């Protein structure tokens, strides 16, 4: 369990983290989602005692990070997979961590196997690692001490699709055994794939949180994609019901939720062949919620570059 309470961190006039409060529960993978510079990394550095907070506090399992003895045994941390000595081999990096935490050397081999780094790869120096390999090594390092909490900053960055799938399996498995996972990303797709819950942050503030369903359910006026045997009749019926429609591919995009569209169709006895929330609902939500922190302007249809 991670609890962040009213956390604030300022740099001069700039408030990097602004009164942030959230909780990560055991048995869940919590995604920390926001554009670059939204305050994700700063929040995570404060969590692990690397940056002092100006106000508020963070507890992990009820303790301040600083008060956890041998923290590597309780909290696995990966803040930057490249923040390792470029001249050390992957194996040596893990061996140093295992030694410090008081773990048997065999733990290094176990972790290397877990993250699928081969024996040959483990003897290469970090500077020769791809970003994806560094992330795998970083995950291995975070898991060394068999912690019950994982704090991972952009762990999927640099992983190929197969790597992301692997990480999803790894973290799902980990959380199902009761572990708490907080992972950050600026990519919605990654978080959508891996996380059970999401916390959206923009310009230092939490803008929304919950499961994907909760986030979309709370969204007023979510659009619907609909297809029918008789599109012209459906268009007429929907327009008559006062709903905004626009053509979208073979079907229609309706600015209303699927239930409203379904009711209109049922009343007119029109056969629907497809009825679902419009694609990109979460993505649009994310972009809108964090709009003032994006470098591109956002239109209802998406991003206008």
């Amino acid at each position, binding site marked *: *369990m991670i*609890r962040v*309470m009213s956390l604030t961190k300022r740099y001069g006039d700039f408030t990097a983290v602004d009164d942030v*409060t*959230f*909780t990560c*529960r055991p048995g869940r993978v919590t995604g920390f989602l926001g554009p670059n510079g939204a305050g994700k990394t700063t929040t995570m*550095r404060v969590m*692990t*005692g*690397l*940056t*002092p907070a100006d106000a508020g506090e963070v*507890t*992990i*399992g*009820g*303790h301040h*990070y*600083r*008060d*956890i*003895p*041998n*923290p*590597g*045994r*309780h909290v696995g*941390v990966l*803040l*930057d997979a490249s*923040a*390792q*000595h*470029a*001249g*050390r081999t992957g194996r*040596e990096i893990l061996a*140093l*961590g295992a*030694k*410090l*935490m*008081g773990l048997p050397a065999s733990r290094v081999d176990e972790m290397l196997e877990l993250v699928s780094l081969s024996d040959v790869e483990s003897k290469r120096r970090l500077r020769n690692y791809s970003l994806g390999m560094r992330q795998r090594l970083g995950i291995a*390092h975070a898991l060394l001490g068999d912690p019950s909490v994982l704090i991972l900053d952009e762990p999927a960055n640099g992983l190929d699709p197969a790597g992301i799938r692997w990480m999803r399996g790894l973290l799902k498995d980990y959380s199902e055994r009761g572990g708490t996972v907080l992972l950050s990303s600026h990519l919605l797709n990654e978080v959508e794939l891996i996380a059970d*819950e999401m916390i959206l942050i923009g310009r230092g503030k*939490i803008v*929304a*949180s*919950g*499961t994907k369903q*909760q*986030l979309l359910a*709370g*969204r*007023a*006026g979510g659009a619907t994609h609909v297809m029918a045997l008789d599109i012209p009749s459906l268009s007429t019926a929907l327009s008559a019901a006062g709903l905004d429609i626009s053509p979208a591919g073979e079907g229609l995009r309706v600015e209303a939720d699927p239930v409203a569209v379904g009711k209109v169709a049922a009343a007119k006895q029109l056969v629907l062949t497809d009825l679902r929330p419009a694609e990109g609902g979460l993505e649009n*939500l994310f972009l*809108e*919620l964090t709009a003032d922190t994006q470098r591109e302007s956002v239109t209802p249809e998406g991003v206008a570059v």
Partner: protein
Amino acid sequence: MTAPAVNTAVNGVVDPALDRVPSIDVSSTQQVPFGRLVSVELRKMTDTRAGRWLLGITLGVLVVAAGIVVIISLFDEQFSMTLSDWQGMLTFLTTMLVPTLAIMSVTQEWSQRTGLVTFALEPHRIRVILSKLVAVTLLALITLVLAAVIAVAGHAALAVTGVDVSWSVDGTDLAWTFYLQMVYFLMAFGLAMAILNTPGSIVVYYLVALILPNIVYGAVYFLLSWGPDVVPWIDLSYAVGAFRGEMPEVPSGTPDLGVGPILSTLVIWVVLPMGIGLRRILRAELK
């Protein structure tokens, strides 16, 4: 468009009952023992190419220097060298390169950004710094022992080649050699703490440890009117020299400054940089 309501069951309003009882039991976990921190820091100094090369080259330089002395003795009938001379020469050679390891032990945490990991695994930064200090002190002791072993071997070689050697050791002189060696390593460590940058620390160290004493201080002492008043208080080897019975060139009538210069040089080159550095490191944000 309005933002979705925050799910209060999970986030937002904090349920005071949640997590009141710590959900992680740390009572059976021991703090990382200090000795383990030290051994990890020692390993970190020697597990990179830079570390191994510095140690290897230093060992090579010591052996070559000893060899050159022995060869010279073959051609010089008047050749004489005491064990203290040996130890002094070889120890000085170790101060050329090995303090770089002391510097990198600190600065790498910033330049290679390993501090992100180091200080996450041991959030009590003072313990990390103290463990590095102990590791660096051990390294300095090891170089002294290494120099002593090669000194004895070289001296024995002189005896074999027919030089009339004495095996007596000037204890006082040896003690000052040890003292200076420690001060050089601690100075390198302190400068690194204050500067937190590898090239910068190395440049300043060589400036202070080699260039100033060997080129600048002498000139200042003899050429500038205020030289004799200032140099003794800032020059490490001058401060020590008075106690080793060296410095024959000191003009007669120079007042005996006692341990004053020893203390002032210690404060200027070790205590002050370490103090500034400690303040920086304890407050620094790891990025």
